[in-house]
């Protein structure tokens, strides 16, 4: 076993090239602890940088080059991400579920024409894409969605409501799960649709929430309700064929359930919390003199490390071509629950100061700590709750069943 990559001279050369290019092209955008504070101007800079990355195939470096991806190996993609990380810049540098989730679904399930049409604009960064899954009556039970897309000639007519959608600053496209045949049996009644967001009949409205975090590299800013009122979309945009929406969803859900992380890095919160603890005092004495403070920090560290290692295992095994089953959901579950226990450890160590929001002078670590206090709660639900991860783990391990559930198709 080898827990570190050894870089070849060729790979190091690529890294040097990437570093130089990034240095020349990367925009300077403040690191907002709360992504909701990203301005429209800053967002446009991100998009512009994305298009430049896309032109080189570096926006989605491991996706096939023929559709605008980079066609790069996992190792080179990792080098690229590490270099971007110096500027605290994720890949893509804005919230875009187009390539991360939808792109793979299109790659696996799309017709040649659909791939040729949709993938290049996604992978080159020409469009940014939201995902539209959850509805007021359909959360964990995604297959019970009610938004309909009824075929009418060469178009589908879409009606319904999606919630917890997207981010700030809009999107050019969304992909969504819809009911194409209200009379068909469960799981056979669905379609998977690429929806241009500028069609008539679409209304986007911001939700009022405790917080909207967004994971690293997917900082979403805000969430919206999206209403569809007789929206007419070309039938061409249905990917995977009528009645196959659940299978197509299986592909992007497989990624979302724990395989979204690409290169695996240390959680930057760890060092922020440790820094605080090393410098803080109570009653004039170092905070670290308290054994329970040290214990809590160690708990924190272990949570972060185990999460890192499980994601790392998954990343490495995917690279080695080993079939993953329960491991994605396991890492995701660990990550989610780890956020909660880390949030409590932080509150225990810092006291109410952990609850002070930037830009207040008392905010810890420029507000990253307060954002984490809120985000840890909110992070429990997107991409499937902890309970849903447990459902997946149980089925994939074959607990109580002789036949284990198969993972969704990834190629």
């Amino acid at each position, binding site marked *: 076993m080898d827990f570190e990559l050894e870089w070849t001279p060729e790979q190091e050369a690529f890294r040097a090239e990437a570093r130089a290019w990034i240095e020349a092209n990367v925009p300077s955008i403040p690191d907002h602890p709360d992504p909701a504070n990203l301005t429209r101007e800053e967002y446009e800079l991100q998009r512009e940088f994305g298009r430049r990355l896309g032109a080189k195939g570096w926006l989605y470096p491991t996706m096939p080059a023929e559709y605008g991806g980079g066609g790069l190996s996992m190792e080179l993609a990792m080098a690229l991400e590490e270099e971007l990380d110096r500027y605290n810049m994720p890949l893509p540098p804005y919230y875009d579920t187009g390539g991360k989730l939808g792109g793979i679904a299109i790659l696996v399930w799309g017709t040649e024409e659909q791939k040729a049409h949709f993938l290049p604009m996604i992978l080159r960064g020409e469009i940014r894409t939201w995902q539209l899954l*959850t509805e007021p*009556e*359909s*959360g*964990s*039970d995604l297959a*019970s969605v009610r938004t309909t897309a009824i075929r009418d000639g060469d178009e589908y007519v879409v009606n319904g409501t999606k*919630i*917890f959608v997207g981010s700030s600053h809009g999107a050019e496209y969304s992909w969504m799960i819809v009911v194409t045949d209200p009379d068909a049996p469960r799981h056979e009644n669905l379609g998977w649709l690429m929806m241009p967001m500028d069609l008539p009949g679409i209304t986007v409205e911001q*939700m*009022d*929430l*405790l*917080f909207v975090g967004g994971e690293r590299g997917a900082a979403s800013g805000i969430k919206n309700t999206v209403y569809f009122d007789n929206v007419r979309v070309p039938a061409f945009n249905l990917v995977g064929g009528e009645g196959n929406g659940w299978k197509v969803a299986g592909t992007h859900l497989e990624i979302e359930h724990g395989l979204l992380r690409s290169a695996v890095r240390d959680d930057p919160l760890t060092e922020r919390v440790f820094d605080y603890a090393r410098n*803080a*005092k*109570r*009653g*004039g004495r170092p905070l670290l003199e308290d054994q*329970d403070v040290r214990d809590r920090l160690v708990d924190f560290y272990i949570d972060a490390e185990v999460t890192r290692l499980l994601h790392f295992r998954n990343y490495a095994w995917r690279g080695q071509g080993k079939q993953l089953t329960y491991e994605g959901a396991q890492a995701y579950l660990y990550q989610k629950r780890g956020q*909660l226990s880390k949030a*409590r450890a932080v*509150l*225990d160590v810092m*006291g*109410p*100061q952990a*609850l*002070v*929001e930037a830009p*207040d002078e*008392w*905010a810890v670590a420029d507000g990253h700590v*307060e954002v984490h*206090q*809120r985000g840890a*709660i*909110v992070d*429990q*639900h997107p991409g499937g*709750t*902890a*309970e849903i991860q*447990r459902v997946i783990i149980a089925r994939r391990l074959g607990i109580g069943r002789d036949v284990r559930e198969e993972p969704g198709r990834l190629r």
Partner: protein
Amino acid sequence: MDLLLNEQQRMLQSTIQDLLRRDFSKEMLVAIDAGTVDVAQGWPALASTGLLGSLVPEEHGGVGGSFSDAGVLFEELGRGPVPGAHFSSGVFAALVLQECGSADQQSAHLPAIASGDAVFAVAVTEPEYGWERGDVQATAERTPDGYTLSGVKLHVPDALEATHFLVAARTGGESVGLFIVPSDAPGVACRTLPGLSTGLGEVLLDGVAIGEDALLGGASDGWDAFERAMLRATAVLSAYQVGGLESVFQMCLEYSRTRRQFQQPIGRFQRVQDHIIDIVNHLDAARWTTYEALWKLDTGRPAESGVHMAAALASEGYYLACNAAHDVHAGVGIVREYGLTLHTRMSRTLYHHLGSPRYHRRRLAGALGLQPGLS
């Protein structure tokens, strides 16, 4: 053994419930949370119930009720949770004044507290946050006429509503005195902190000159007396948290029945059930330790270990119950208008108030004789 409310307590409970239903609907509480309605708007209604004088002696215009009675009232307030200075002023400050204040000071301020005309907030904690004597670093320098107070008080509940502060400050060496400081005194500046907490403020004391009679009890060290008052206040705060727990539990129970996923109520799933069972366990653990602690205070029994245990269970339980409730509700729970996040914020806000769970556990260890050399 009689573990039911008595007749009078049931009346108290029903009166306050009626008021809260009328003046503190969920929509109102959400509006206060969103900042579209001022928290102070509800003060007259609260004051009218007499609950601010629940623990104030009759001679000072209060009800002179028992701690258990106060528990009944504040449990109902916690259900909202109804924010504001009712606890800070009507319980915490009232008890500190009774424990530390001179007869004159009590006569001067307790009636106003009981009537709601004065609003007291207790300004003890600082940037190096904690509830131990050694955590107080603000200073009170002796002047010919009195004292000059300097320092930063942080995470002070209800600071912005207060007409007066009870300020803890070092009077020399390890000694800590408690001072009455009008919030409009020159040199006092005050604001609410932004973020996940609710109603916590910063109070800057920039050379605040106060008279000699501002020192509670005229005692240059009032910390031990302050701790006695704090212990009693803690048991009432726990009752408030029990109310919050009860409310979170009821929200989850209701949602478990009405929300359907996978063609059945979500409460049919064992994982959802277990979250709710965890909540009811936190609730009942906090509830019965709190009730016993209040009973011990009322009957003059040694109450230290009981109060600390209840406080640890109530603070931790409320915090963890909110986490579990978010698991039960998933996305719906984080929508502000649904109302769960009111509790989420309050549970975080109160987590360290009057001592963190760690503080209470340490004190409990002491009360149980679990200190080296005490065997």
